[in-house]
């Protein structure tokens, strides 16, 4: 039996980047409600998020946020499911995020050392051992679970395996998911990418939970 590309994608995102929920037809309909058309971007197309379906607290917004960070710094609050870009005068731009297992495994200070448009995805060896049916590498594109952008965190030149990336599952924003790192809506991860030069500081807050 040979798997179609879409089937592989479904398997990959179901196994790797989403909460383990059995999906029925009703749920598929619910999922469709999260999308509203498509957007052309760098040679690919992503599904536009229906922002009316997203809880207002997860939408991008300017907030008062007391911080000691230099402007431009990204602060990730995994517990509250928020990502902030620190601005001057104790304000910040806030985005809602979904946090995967990988997103909880580390906290502290890092910097964005690499950025990618339509990133490819290579499942880590331990995941391949568990799920030999997964592809060894997925090229970037509309079905890739990382979505349209990724930013890779390093510390002292060392890849932390900690990434800020997009998602193809907008309903997962604001929740803890089985895998992945810090995922944002496609519109939001593109916006964040635009505001984040290589070298940007990132602070992942300690999570006592």
């Amino acid at each position, binding site marked *: 039996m040979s798997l179609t590309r879409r089937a592989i994608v479904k398997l990959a995102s179901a196994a790797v980047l989403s909460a383990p929920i059995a999906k029925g037809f009703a749920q598929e309909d619910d999922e469709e409600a999260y999308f509203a058309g498509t957007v052309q971007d760098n040679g690919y197309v992503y599904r536009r998020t229906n922002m009316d379906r997203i809880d*207002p607290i997860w*939408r*991008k*917004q*300017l*907030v*008062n*946020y*007391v911080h000691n960070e*230099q*402007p*431009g*710094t990204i602060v990730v*609050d*995994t*517990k*509250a499911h*928020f990502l*902030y870009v620190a601005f001057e005068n104790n*304000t*910040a*731009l*806030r985005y809602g995020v979904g946090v995967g297992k990988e997103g909880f495994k*580390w*906290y*502290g*200070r890092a*910097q964005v050392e690499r950025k990618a448009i339509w990133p490819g995805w290579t499942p880590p060896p331990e995941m391949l051992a568990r799920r030999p049916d997964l592809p060894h590498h997925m090229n970037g594109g509309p079905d890739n679970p990382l979505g349209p952008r990724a930013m890779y965190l390093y510390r002292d030149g060392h890849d932390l395996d900690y990434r800020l990336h997009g998602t193809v599952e907008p309903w997962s924003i604001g929740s803890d998911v089985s895998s992945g790192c810090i995922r944002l809506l496609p519109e939001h991860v593109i*916006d964040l*990418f*635009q*505001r984040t*030069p*290589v*070298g*940007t*500081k990132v*602070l*992942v*807050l*300690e*999570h*006592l*939970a």
Partner: protein
Amino acid sequence: MGRSKRELGTATRLIALALSLALAGCASELAPPKSAANDTAAGAGLDVPPGSNEDFIVNVGRRVFFTENSAALDDTAKATLDNQAAWLSNYPAYKVKVEGFADEKGSTQFNMQLGMKRAEAVAAYLVSKGVPAARLKAKSFGNAPNRKVKACDDISCWSQNRRAVTVLVTDVET
């Protein structure tokens, strides 16, 4: 009552100590601040008036970034400027001051020139996307200490300082 409170306090401290020891085992980091969603709505929150300065800051973005000693616009910068040009075409009442900046490396004079090249590159790009040149003014701040995002001897500061900021003005200074 007072005693049970004290006991509770001791128990809490013990739990906190146990947690901090457990965490010390899994990450040898400087302790960053504890997680707390300690923010409040600023400005208009979700009801940002279309065409306002806040709309421009939140939904378009004022800054583009450059690499060291370069005034070249990369694809990321162009994508932001495309959005700026579209927004400025929708709201023609605004004039714009493009402010160019440099990081702290190099002489004051060099950085003043570099900041100007950056501001002019942004202005020229906006003009190429249909914003009338008469609405635009380019100005350099070089590496002026009071206009730095932050000063430090590290790429995290340099990368934020190598920038051009598109500032909306209703009256352009003369």
